């Protein structure tokens, strides 16, 4: 413990000089910003004028933990169909499409970076958007106007998402996903039959709980639930710009046969 404390204070010492030259920084911070006061954490989730719970804000996490780690030990093995178990055993971390800057799909859009949930009020509430700072610098569009899924959507990276409210919980139903992304960094596979039901509940001011039902009869023996937790960023924080494709040197070192695209960088 003592060693840890010493290490933390050393880092603190390094960080302090950089801060002094960046007065505007706090306003630009995205993501979790150190310990919060207990009183603040205990505040209830805010509401919009019409009484709807307000989930909008900058969040960190909430979709990036490897699925095997969210289940009991060995549980995933009992859920995977034989082909999926075999595939998962054969993959290498370096093959993750995410490292080649491809979109991470509906779960990983919240992983590793700050992200913003946009929940407009009034007439505009027909949509909710999830904006991702990192990786593909992309977004999810959730239709809140009562429409149904199309009968046979062409599969895409984020699929077709429709949402509705069940009391304080936002329920998002997604189909039409392609099978080109990994569900998580562990390489949990899926097929185009994947159907996600996500339940977002702001359990206190700073915490967004996300319970996801993963239903894919092409990959798993039965549907199962996993629970993620996102934490609120600092007040007035912002997402910043991050395009992974800009200067990705990943393939250069791990797989010479699969070089990442090379983009000239202006001086």
């Amino acid at each position, binding site marked *: 413990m003592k060693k840890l404390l010493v290490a933390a204070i050393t880092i603190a010492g390094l960080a302090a000089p950089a801060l002094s030259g960046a007065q505007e920084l706090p306003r630009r911070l995205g993501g979790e910003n150190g310990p919060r006061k207990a009183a603040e954490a205990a505040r209830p989730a805010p509401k919009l004028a019409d009484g709807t719970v307000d989930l909008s804000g900058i969040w960190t996490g909430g979709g990036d933990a490897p699925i095997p780690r969210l289940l009991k030990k060995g549980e995933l093995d009992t859920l995977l169909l034989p082909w999926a178990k075999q595939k998962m055993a054969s993959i290498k971390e370096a093959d993750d499409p995410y490292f080649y800057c491809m979109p991470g799909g509906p779960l990983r859009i919240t992983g590793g970076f700050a992200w913003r949930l946009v929940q407009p009020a009034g007439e505009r509430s027909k949509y909710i958007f999830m904006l991702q700072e*990192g990786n593909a610098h992309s977004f999810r569009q959730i239709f809140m106007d009562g429409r149904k899924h199309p009968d046979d959507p062409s599969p895409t990276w984020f699929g077709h998402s429709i949402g509705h409210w069940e009391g304080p919980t936002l329920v998002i139903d997604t189909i039409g996903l392609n099978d080109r992304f990994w569900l998580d960094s562990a390489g949990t596979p899926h097929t185009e039959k994947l159907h996600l039901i996500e339940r977002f509940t702001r359990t206190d001011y700073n915490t967004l709980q996300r319970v996801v039902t993963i239903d894919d009869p092409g990959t798993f023996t039965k549907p199962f639930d996993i629970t993620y937790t996102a934490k609120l960023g600092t007040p007035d924080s912002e997402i910043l710009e991050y395009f992974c494709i800009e200067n990705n040197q990943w393939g250069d070192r791990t797989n010479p046969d699969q070089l990442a695209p090379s983009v000239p960088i202006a001086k």
Partner: protein
Amino acid sequence: MNMKAGVAAVGLAMASLAIPVSAHHSWTAEYDAKKPVTVKGVVSKVEWTNPHTHFYVDATDANGKVTTWNFEMASTPALERGGWSRKTLPIGTEVTVEGFAGSNVAERAIVTSFKGPDGKEFFVPKLGN
């Protein structure tokens, strides 16, 4: 007010929000934790880019041979949140860099510590696991 304690508290907050380099991927896939390196040289190019920033450092040995090191650092959002900008280390700055050599190409290394000409340390986000 205990000034030292105040500075430490601010710094701790900064340290805890640092998004690790591994936000994009695990650093040990590309770099060798058993090959620590220390390089003294001059910044010759800065790529203020994502998924990660790259600082190129020219080091000259006793025989006058110049080796260009490609040092990888965190993403621009992670560095900006740590107080950096693309101008923090201008080309020509004398630096001492510590890190780990690349698994395939040693001179492609990852940074754990950056010191300026006066020995001043710059904030470097912690490496993930």
